[in-house]
């Protein structure tokens, strides 16, 4: 047993987190910043943070992930990081020449109280920032929230720094804040919006940045990402669709209050119902018809669900990850008549438990939901030890539980370090839901094929 010291039980812990179901803010800010075209993220703190974030993102994407760091030493930690950041801004613009640097803080710089707004304005005044170039920042203290918070903060900062209000009528155009999803998911959301014939700006957009082709040429800044012009224009769009309350809500709210762009706060379009609501919102807000091709994709998803229903019906699932994913995914699993009995996120936040109760309340009254402090994978495993599940859905760290408990794992969420596909094949939209369902079915059917008695080995399934 790989996790041999985990015993069943629900022993209370007040101070100790074991096997977390979250990580810290800055990595989320870095991921979001990568979704701006020609942007170099910058980690203001010790260089270890930056190395850790780059490594984790790289392992997840198997892609180049670049970021600057202020490389604090003990001196900087004591006397403040202003000099380091100014020097970094100089060096980054002269050596790497991005259009924009997106700074996020760390627990180190937050603890010592570096005022980034002030440093950036000093940088401007002292001409550290070349003409036409930009530096923006967000505060991402690692000791508050989680990686999701960091993502949300950086997206909100894009609005704060860049969005410009319309002078007259807004454009007939949608802002799409995709939330923390994969490049392939962003591509898929764009495909759907384009198929609806709706003009849009997606931000951030990591497609074309973290799923780049192998060409024989290395690009510091790949072709993808939301341009600065687009970010400015977000203030002149007619409406914002914010997908995922935790990751996209704050930016949408900010855009409303700064530029008076109203917003629809929607779930991530994972699964049938959330995608329905997304498409329907597009349809309503822009008075366009849904093209037959999308309705057909929806129908193919329904078809697949109806045909293989016997393998999902009544199955108990444990899931962990980020609130936005968990809510939409749980709703989809319930549609498949599966039972998300254990759902847990390390990310704190107000609405998660309420939303989960709404999704699971009637259908899976026995479900255990946990969030924030103490909601870690050790706890999840303890629950599983008390009463097992048929399936695990979550990030790669679940593989230890999967092996110990001989329970199949569908990899979804962040980080996925040991398989490929997540960056290339979407799980959002109807097509994404089909992929999800395929993964779930394969998990069950592969296990059955492997373990059933010989007399129960089936040719047709």
């Amino acid at each position, binding site marked *: 047993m790989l*996790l*041999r*010291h985990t*015993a069943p039980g629900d*022993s209370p812990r*007040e*101070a*100790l*987190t*074991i*096997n*977390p179901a979250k*990580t*810290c*803010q*800055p990595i989320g800010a870095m991921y979001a910043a990568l979704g701006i075209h020609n942007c170099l993220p910058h980690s203001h703190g*010790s*260089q*270890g*943070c930056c*190395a*850790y974030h780059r*490594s*984790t993102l*790289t392992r997840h*994407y*198997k*892609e*180049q992930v*670049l970021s*600057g*760091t*202020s*490389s604090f*030493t*003990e*001196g900087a*930690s004591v006397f403040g990081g202003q000099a380091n950041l100014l020097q*970094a*801004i*100089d*060096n980054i613009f*002269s*050596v790497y020449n991005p259009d924009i640097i997106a700074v996020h803080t*760390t*627990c*180190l710089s937050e*603890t010592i109280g570096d005022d980034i707004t002030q440093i950036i304005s000093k940088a401007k005044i002292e001409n550290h920032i070349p003409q036409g170039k930009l530096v923006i920042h967000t505060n991402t*203290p*690692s*000791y*508050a929230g989680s990686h999701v918070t960091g993502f949300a903060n950086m997206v909100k900062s894009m609005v704060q720094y860049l969005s410009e209000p319309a002078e007259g009528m807004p454009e007939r155009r949608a802002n799409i804040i995709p939330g923390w999803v994969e490049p392939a998911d962003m591509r898929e959301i764009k495909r759907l919006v384009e198929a609806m014939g709706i003009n849009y700006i997606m931000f951030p957009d990591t497609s074309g940045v973290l799923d*780049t082709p*192998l*060409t*024989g040429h*290395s690009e510091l800044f790949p072709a993808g990402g939301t341009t600065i012009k687009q970010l400015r224009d977000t203030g002149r769009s007619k409406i914002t669709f914010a997908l995922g309350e935790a990751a996209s809500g704050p930016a949408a709210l900010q855009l409303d209050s700064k530029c008076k762009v109203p917003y629809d706060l929607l779930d991530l379009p994972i699964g049938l119902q959330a995608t329905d609501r997304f498409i329907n919102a597009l349809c309503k807000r822009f008075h366009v018809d849904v093209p037959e091709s999308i309705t057909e994709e929806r129908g193919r998803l329904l078809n697949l669900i109806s045909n293989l229903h016997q393998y999902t019906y009544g199955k108990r699932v444990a899931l962990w990850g980020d609130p936005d994913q968990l809510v939409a995914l749980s709703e989809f699993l319930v549609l498949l008549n599966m039972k998300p009995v254990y759902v847990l996120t*390390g990310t704190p936040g107000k609405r998660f438990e309420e939303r989960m109760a709404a999704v699971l309340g009637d259908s899976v009254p026995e479900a255990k939901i946990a969030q924030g*402090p103490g909601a870690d994978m050790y706890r999840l495993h303890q629950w599983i030890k008390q009463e097992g599940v048929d399936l695990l859905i979550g990030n790669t*760290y679940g593989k230890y539980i999967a092996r110990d408990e001989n329970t199949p794992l569908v990899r979804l969420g962040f980080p996925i370090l040991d398989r490929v596909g997540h960056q290339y094949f979407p799980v959002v939209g109807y097509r994404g839901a089909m992929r999800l369902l395929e993964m779930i079915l394969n998990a069950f059917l592969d296990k059955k094929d492997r373990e059933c008695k010989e007399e129960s080995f089936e040719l047709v399934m």
Partner: protein
Amino acid sequence: MVKESIYNPEEIKDKLVADFPSKIARKRAKAIVVNTGTDETPQIAANARTVPGLITMRGCAYAGCKGVILGPTRDVLSITHGPIGCGFYSWLTRRNQTRPPKPEDENFMTYCLSTDMQESEIVFGGEKKLAQAIEEAYQLFKPKTIVVHATCPVGLIGDDIHQVTRAAQEKLGIKVFGFSCEGYKGVSQSAGHHIANNQIFKHMVGTDNTASPSPYRVNLLGEYNIGGDAFVIEDLFARCGFELVSTFCGNSDHDSMCRSHTAELNLVMCHRSINYMADMMETKYGIPWIKVNFIGAEATAKSLRKIARYFGDEKLIEQTERVIEEEMPAVSEARQLYQERCRGKKVMLFVGGSRAHHYQELFKELGMEVVAAGYEFAHRDDYEGRRVLPSITVDADSRNIEELTVEKDPERYKERVSPEKCAELAANGVEFKDYAGMMPEMEAGSLTIDEPSHHETFRLLELYKPDLYCAGVKEKYAVQKTGIPCLQLHSYDYGGPFAGFEGAINFYKDVDRLVSSRIWSYLEAPWQRQTQVKATYGI
């Protein structure tokens, strides 16, 4: 093979720094050295601060302490005191394998324990939460030893982890101690190694005097069992007849580290990360140390022979030769096969604090040419040899890492080798307390570069177009985008082991895989080739 050198290395050096602001260019130029091919090596700037804003390979002291040194010991329970990130990122991300003797034996390596500090602790202090966390960890895991790792804010807010751990030790009746390895300490992981070594030496080494009956007792220092390297070495030792008391720190366990001072000889693999320990054990207990290298079949044979010769027992020497004889035919066969496909190809390696040196052995065995190499977190002596130690100036960043004052243990100090014997052994190739460094062993005209930034890396690739690049995960996929394969020498691309004879064969295969892979010849689509032809011929 005639070596082609299209560029003058001095020219290349200029090109590498040409795009930097002049101040940075001057600084970086000192970290780039053209090798002379002799023992007369120029001085290199190493262990210097990373330039803010330059995209770096380096990590921090916490990574060096918790990740590297403490990580591979299965039954010492680590708690990270700090916000959640540091614990999370160092959770199982190094490939240091472990194999407890029995399936039910303690193994905490799959667990990540953290105090997950919140804003209130930053404001009001985290000592109480840490104390509570230690107790909760004790209740759940009942370990022999708990250690605490400090992260950046801990030092800044003034939490005294040593006070908290002392109190916990008293209360719980087990060993509890801490590491002040805040991420901003020093200039790289290296600071963390030092901090870790100090505390392990203080709190663990020498706490159990039980010695094995075998006379051929050794410790292996600086071997972290990436991809199972230590298993290969353990097997070789067992077959040769050497008794491995303890490894620092691969496939390691608490008790053996506590008994490590009973060894007769310390074998140092990664000098960079562990030299502190070897020196302190020599001073306190009189255990001499020699540099060994189990990366490369020849190097492995040489290292095994050195150990056997140290003990001097004829049977042991004979048995060691027998083991080498058993292993070499397969190595030779593989080498012949893969040399044919790899010989003459150019390679660069930038990694670690000794790997970039050790792996040159294997590339030599394959007949490949190392055109540039460097470390990520090394000091000058790792490049230039131990002899330069006295001339290394201690800067502000190094000065704030504690140097333990160690003295002879009045009872347990024992001279293992007389000065005369020592000289005799040295004459026979068993040189104590020494290592040559990477630069003297590299070809004239090749480059040594300390911690190249992302910019320098890509200039190097453009200028040399090497056949293979070796680095870490942060570099791998970026490098491969240029069509040049990249082997991760931290994680072995999730393969290995690469140590010993078996490891050499694995390595040959992997290098062949990378340089011979068919994919690299398909980077252009047919229509792109046509376009080029069109462009060239104006069609």
